[in-house]
């Protein structure tokens, strides 16, 4: 017991530092969360009021009505889900073809996929806008979704994993008369669930938060996604009405935080396995 408390005492400075770090990162989040329930007067007070005296839940409905958040949610959900599903599907099928189909020059094809990682999204911004314009997709879901569908990094992750799968299991499946399509979905995918979860989550979070492409490719309030929509709310309410603005930022952030709480392990392992954001 004495040894234990001695250790705790010796570690006290480290605990102090940990507390400082958690405060530095966590306090702004606490500030938004409590701010969303404060009155304007409480927000405009210095030194600050830490907790709202009478939580104002009205801020949330005020925010919801000040900008078409229902539409923003719908758009964000459609775009995020469609792109995540497409990326998962394409990454799976492409990686499968690269590993399990015998064709000459597949390493060259892999190089073609891999080199796409070196082309930053920003370099493709203006030309893709023009392509989407020629297709008549400006301000449509197609314009929001399709240019973001191709997937290089996810393909790379799946390929890495597929190469580690046991050949015997796959050969047995082939002998059982399993075609490649069924092999992919019934044998290979179940053995690759962690990678699939990782690829899916990275796509999910990246698309949900994406700001630049939706800003460029849509031009009416009705087609905006949540991250662009929140800047509307800020413009509408100005600095006059911070309570609803705080509430509005929570509309954008809470869904991701919920996903994070459930799937923290997968997200972190995904990021450390390749460390490409977005």
């Amino acid at each position, binding site marked *: 017991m004495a040894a234990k408390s001695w250790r705790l005492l010796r570690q006290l400075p480290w605990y102090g530092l940990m507390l400082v770090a958690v405060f530095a990162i966590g306090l702004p989040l606490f500030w938004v969360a409590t701010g969303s329930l404060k009155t304007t007067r409480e927000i405009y007070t210095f030194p600050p009021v830490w907790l709202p005296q009478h939580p104002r839940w009205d801020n949330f409905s005020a925010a919801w009505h000040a900008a078409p958040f229902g539409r923003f949610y719908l758009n964000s959900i459609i775009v995020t889900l469609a792109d995540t599903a497409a990326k998962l599907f394409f990454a799976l099928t492409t990686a499968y073809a*690269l590993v399990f189909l015998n064709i000459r020059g597949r390493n060259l094809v892999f190089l073609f996929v891999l080199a796409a990682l070196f082309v930053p999204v920003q370099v493709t911004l203006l030309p893709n806008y023009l392509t989407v314009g020629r297709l008549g997709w400006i301000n449509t879901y197609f314009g929001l979704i399709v240019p973001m569908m191709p997937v290089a990094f996810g393909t790379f992750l799946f390929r890495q994993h597929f190469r580690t799968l046991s050949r015997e299991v796959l050969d047995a499946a082939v002998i059982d008369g399993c075609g490649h399509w069924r092999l992919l979905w019934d044998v290979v995918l179940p053995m690759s669930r962690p990678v699939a979860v990782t690829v899916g989550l990275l796509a999910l979070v990246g698309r949900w938060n994406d*700001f630049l492409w939706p800003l460029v490719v849509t031009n009416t309030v009705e087609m905006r996604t949540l991250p662009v929509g929140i800047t509307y709310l800020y413009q509408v309410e100005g600095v006059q009405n911070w309570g609803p603005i705080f509430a509005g930022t929570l509309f954008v952030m809470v869904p991701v935080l919920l996903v994070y709480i459930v799937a923290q392990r997968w997200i972190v392992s995904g*990021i450390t396995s390749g460390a490409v954001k977005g």
Partner: protein
Amino acid sequence: MARDVVQPAAVSGLHWRAMLTWMQQKLGDWPLFVLFAGPNLVLLAIFTYWPLLYNVYLSLTSWDLIAPVKPFVGLTNYRNLAASAEFRTVLLNTAIFALGTVGGTTILGLALALLLNLRLRGRTLARAIIFAPVLLSGAAISVFWINMLDPRFGLVALPLRWLGLPVPDWLNSPHWAMVAVILVYIWQNTGFSMVLYLAGLQNIPHELYEAARIDGAGAVASFRHVTLPQLGPTTLFVLVVSVINSFQAFDLIKVLTDGGPVNATTTLLFYIYQQGFVAFNAGRAAAASIVLFVLLLGLSLLQLRLGERRVHYGG
């Protein structure tokens, strides 16, 4: 009668099957490969590679995004960029932003990883909280940081007043706007490098520490001679990824300062956006994009080269 009708169908079915086997013998897995990988490859070609080529072409024109013809002007856009004082400011801003954000997130990320690698109670929760902002929308973060940075009632003013320091009008001051944007960026992204460093720390073989202890190394010595050198490759990786990410920062700058005041926070990417979509100067935007692309490509190749060398030395 009925048989006569069925017969040709059966025959054509046979043909069909024969053709399939013939194709399979002749083409092997190719048709299947096209079916599986084709769509993704086509999309990559249209939305990743074609834009790159098209960008090179656009950078050689002076086009306003509207006129039916794109006048060819050769390297004029590049020459104009090289001569433009504004573009020099933009490059300087990009460098300052990269230096500040990469330096800040890397040093803090390493420090936090070392701290939270100790056996402290509650470290899992602390890690989770510190990483959380990485996943949040930059636009939403920027909106509430505008409030935090308000010089009259913002939270950031509080410690400054306690210390009796002057409180700058962060986002409206040409001197402080860049500092503020860098601070918000560091706040959001430190968790990212921390997580990478934690993974790096966990990959250090335990035997090395034991060997160091047997050799009589204390905590400090084993940190200097085992931990730090072993983190070399991780550091290289963190640095390169962080520089690339910082070059691609957009939403913070757009929402916090809109590139201002007076271009004080206009980085290369923001400049591309402005030239392309606000000033409708497609040629100049494209030329700046190519500059960004070359810079990023250089960095990535540098990482590959250095990474290779490390492997050689290690082996």
